[in-house]
């Protein structure tokens, strides 16, 4: 099983118990009715999934709702699970699809609203800031973060998914490509265009971008 080695190789973002069995083994446990295996998958992917969805929809309640839906679908499909594709590919495919549908629905909803209502409701956005986030966040940083959020949000949706998976999830190009259903080279050019667009849009921010290091 080449699959098992692959998933063992990555573990930076997820709180991996060193003794943990692989996702495939856990999922087979879920299939066999082992409650504890589902518990462990949940513990491992809850935060990455909610964060990914939060960055997609920019609303915590919606993100959590969608993450639950994704776990629910995994659980309901457990009997049909066949170890093949990586578990994360499957999970993030489900999540991506849910997020895109949710965004389309809320866009449709906003359009309908704007017909007979001035745009009082801007939809999910930065206005939803939970207390924890406000700690030590200066106005300048807030403004800066908002520009970055907006730049990412303005990307075509597939580029946006690609960037979010690429930047924040510990996934290889091959896996991201599989999540998006495209070839690896298509993914790379997708990412290239996306980062190029971001570079242009964020260019005015550049002067104080120094010293931030290499990211994660």
């Amino acid at each position, binding site marked *: 099983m080449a699959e098992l080695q692959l998933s063992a190789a990555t573990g930076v973002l997820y709180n991996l118990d060193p003794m943990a069995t692989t996702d495939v083994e856990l999922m087979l446990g879920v299939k066999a009715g082992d409650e504890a295996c589902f518990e462990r998958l*949940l513990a491992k992917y*809850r*935060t990455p999934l*909610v*964060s990914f969805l*939060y*960055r997609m929809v920019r609303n*915590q309640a919606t*993100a*959590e709702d969608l*993450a*639950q839906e994704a776990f*629910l*679908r995994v*659980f*309901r*499909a457990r009997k*049909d699970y066949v170890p093949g594709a990586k578990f994360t590919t499957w999970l993030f*495919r489900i999540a*991506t*699809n849910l997020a*895109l*549908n949710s965004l*389309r629905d809320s*866009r449709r909803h906003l359009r309908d609203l704007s017909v007979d209502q001035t745009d009082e409701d801007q939809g999910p956005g930065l206005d939803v800031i*939970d207390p*924890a986030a406000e700690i030590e966040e200066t106005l300048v*940083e807030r403004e800066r*973060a908002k520009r*970055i*959020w907006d730049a990412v949000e303005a*990307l*075509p*949706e*597939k*580029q946006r998914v690609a960037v979010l998976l*690429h*930047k*924040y999830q510990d996934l*290889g*190009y091959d896996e991201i490509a599989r999540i*998006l*259903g*495209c*070839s690896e080279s298509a993914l*790379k050019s997708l*990412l*290239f265009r996306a*980062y190029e667009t*971001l*570079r242009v849009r*964020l260019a005015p*921010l*550049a002067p104080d*971008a120094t010293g*931030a*290091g*290499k*990211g*994660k």
Partner: protein
Amino acid sequence: MDCERIEAALLAVVDGRAAKQERERVEGHVAACGACARRMEEMQGVWSDLDSLRAVEPSPSFDARLRARMAEQPARPRFFEWMTGNMRLVAVVAALVAVAVWISLRPTIQRPAPSSAQAQQDFAVVKNLPVLENYDVVANFDVLSDLPGAEDTSTQPQSLE
């Protein structure tokens, strides 16, 4: 000289996914080429800008709410699992037709005063139908069927602009 190829490889160096060999090739070029060095710096700038899209922790009630939703799920009728997609459709349609016929015939037999038991029975039938109809949705693995295709520009249903 082969700046174009270096440019294509820059991202994998910045994101840390490049293999050692590739990284060394890029770094070697960048050390000697001002234009590519600048490109790399810009790429690193964007990469670290993105650090400010913070992650969120799921709220404490996340698991409890998920459990509640898991408990809600309808029990699958056993025999249904043995059917293929078409047979399921036929079964659902047949069930609907049977109910329609039953409903349309019923009033002639028993009009005057529908007992509350009768009403409850009606309700039970109506309540169970969506379970059948939803089954294919629940069992559907191809969750990405409406993700935009490989060409992100042409197949996009709604443009973000």
